[in-house]
């Protein structure tokens, strides 16, 4: 379990994450939704210690992320940033191998090789394994980064807008993959999504943020409603049931 206690971050006088307290489960798919600037990325960055907090604390299975040795945290929790990109010329394979760093300190064990191969397979990257990442398309590169956090094989996987740049084939493929990771491997996937319908179809729980605070939190049935979504996004939605899923329409 990840316990977030009154986490706060302010830039100058604007508080962008305001005393957020949450408990993230140790398995399942949890989606974070909310309008641009709501504080989703800031929250996820603090939870993953990439960004320091102004107040509050985060603990992952009892490990204080801000004070525990970073390499211990790296075995429990991995993060894929929204704007994760580099211009270093390394291959997909090399990138994914970096995911094993917390486990092997750079010396790949047979177990590491297996994890890397599996991650490449999962993300449909076997053919691209030897390609330098700067030569890939945006979506291919995104998948390479996802494969890297998969190879890291942590219980908690945090992803900030992982569907960025993906076509619907790969977006749906990735959501199915994340669902499978949660179901088959018992991982806890926490991801920021802008497409509320992906959140609705694939999540066990949806957390909606607005102005730095959590405004709705619950299973899709309680968050994907015309009323709740309207409050979060300040816009009109109509919610329909389609093949048993709750689908929100907001196109006109």
């Amino acid at each position, binding site marked *: 379990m990840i316990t977030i206690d009154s986490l706060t971050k302010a830039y100058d006088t604007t508080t962008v994450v305001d005393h957020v307290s949450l408990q993230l489960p140790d398995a399942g798919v949890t989606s974070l939704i909310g309008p641009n600037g709501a504080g989703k990325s800031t929250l996820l960055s603090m939870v993953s210690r990439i960004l320091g907090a102004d107040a509050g604390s985060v603990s992952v299975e009892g490990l204080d992320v801000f004070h525990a040795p970073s*390499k211990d945290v790296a075995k429990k929790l991995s993060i894929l940033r929204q704007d994760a990109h*580099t211009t*270093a*010329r*390394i291959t997909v394979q090399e990138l994914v191998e970096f995911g094993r760093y917390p486990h092997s300190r750079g010396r790949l064990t047979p177990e590491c090789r297996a994890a890397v191969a599996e991650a490449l397979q999962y993300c449909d990257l076997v053919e691209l394994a030897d390609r330098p990442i700067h030569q890939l398309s945006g979506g291919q590169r995104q998948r390479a980064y996802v494969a890297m956090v998969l190879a890291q094989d942590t219980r908690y996987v945090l992803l900030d807008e992982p569907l960025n740049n993906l076509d619907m084939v790969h977006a749906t493929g990735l959501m199915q993959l994340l669902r499978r990771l949660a179901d088959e491997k018992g991982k806890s996937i926490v991801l920021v999504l802008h497409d509320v319908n992906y959140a609705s179809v694939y999540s066990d729980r949806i957390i909606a943020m607005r102005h730095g605070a959590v405004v709705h939190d619950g299973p899709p049935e309680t968050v994907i409603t015309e009323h709740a979504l309207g409050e979060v996004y300040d816009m009109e939605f109509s919610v329909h049931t389609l093949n048993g899923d709750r689908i929100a329409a907001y196109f006109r």
Partner: protein
Amino acid sequence: MAPQRSTVAAAAPWVAAAAVLILAIVSIFIGVADVDFRALWSDPESRQIFLQSRLPRTFAIILAGSALAVAGLIMQHLARNRFVAPSTAGTVDAAALGLLAVTILAPGTAIMGKIAIACVFALAGTALFIALIQRVQFKDVVYVPLIGIVLGGVYAAIGEFFAYRTNLTQTMSVWMNGDFSGIIQGRYETLWLAGGVAVLAYVFANWFTAAGMGRDFATNIGVNFRLAMAGGLTIAALVTAVVVTTVGAIPFLGLIVPNIVTMMLGDNLRRVLPTTALLGAALVLVCDIVGRVVIFPYEIAVGVIVGTLGSAVFLAMILRRSNRYANA
């Protein structure tokens, strides 16, 4: 295409090693006092020349060339800019300034003490450069090395000022211009320290690669970004300090060699570091041989030849701006 690249990657260090070996043999047997291979056994004088001058010179070239190339490789990676190297980040000028400070204030200091002071100056000078470029967001990557060169110019100007007053301008210019002609046994051994540090860089190569991928990337996999940064810059500063103190700076070596190698083999430091080191040694060996042959029986200092070659490559790079890190 993909397999081709990995074949090149696998073959590169061996090809480079073979080149170094051949060039080293040429380097040993070329020169004013001809060394006859058979005479080494029969003639004590030949053996003397061989052991006291030829061999040390060749070792010195290999150590300095490889260590400087590795220093450049680490610096360009950590700064995330292909134009950053000891000679374009103020590192060399800061090391020389440190050396000048000891020479003026404590002339009797032992060589290791001098190196230590030069290293501290080089590190501080480079850290100032890094802090500067991190603070200012440049639109164009070529501004980064230009800032470094200007900063280096400031360090050099401060040095000139004091050197002039203490009659040390001649000595200053010796530090700034690498020359292996004075190398004999007992005068180059400090370079083994630079070589050792380069080996240490190989051990921590994955660390530097991770740090070069960005702070967030490094943090996620549990690499301490600040520590990796500090460690990498210390290695670069120490190598620079040792080389400047022992044989004098070899301008732009740390810039051109890593660029040639990473252009071919990519940016995974662990994979490219050995080839970079070997190619650095090979380049200095070639330049040294050329310097000894063209105006025989006189010599052109290696620093002049590498510097000329390096500044031409540097200019070409700037004009092409084919910098991958640029479009970040």
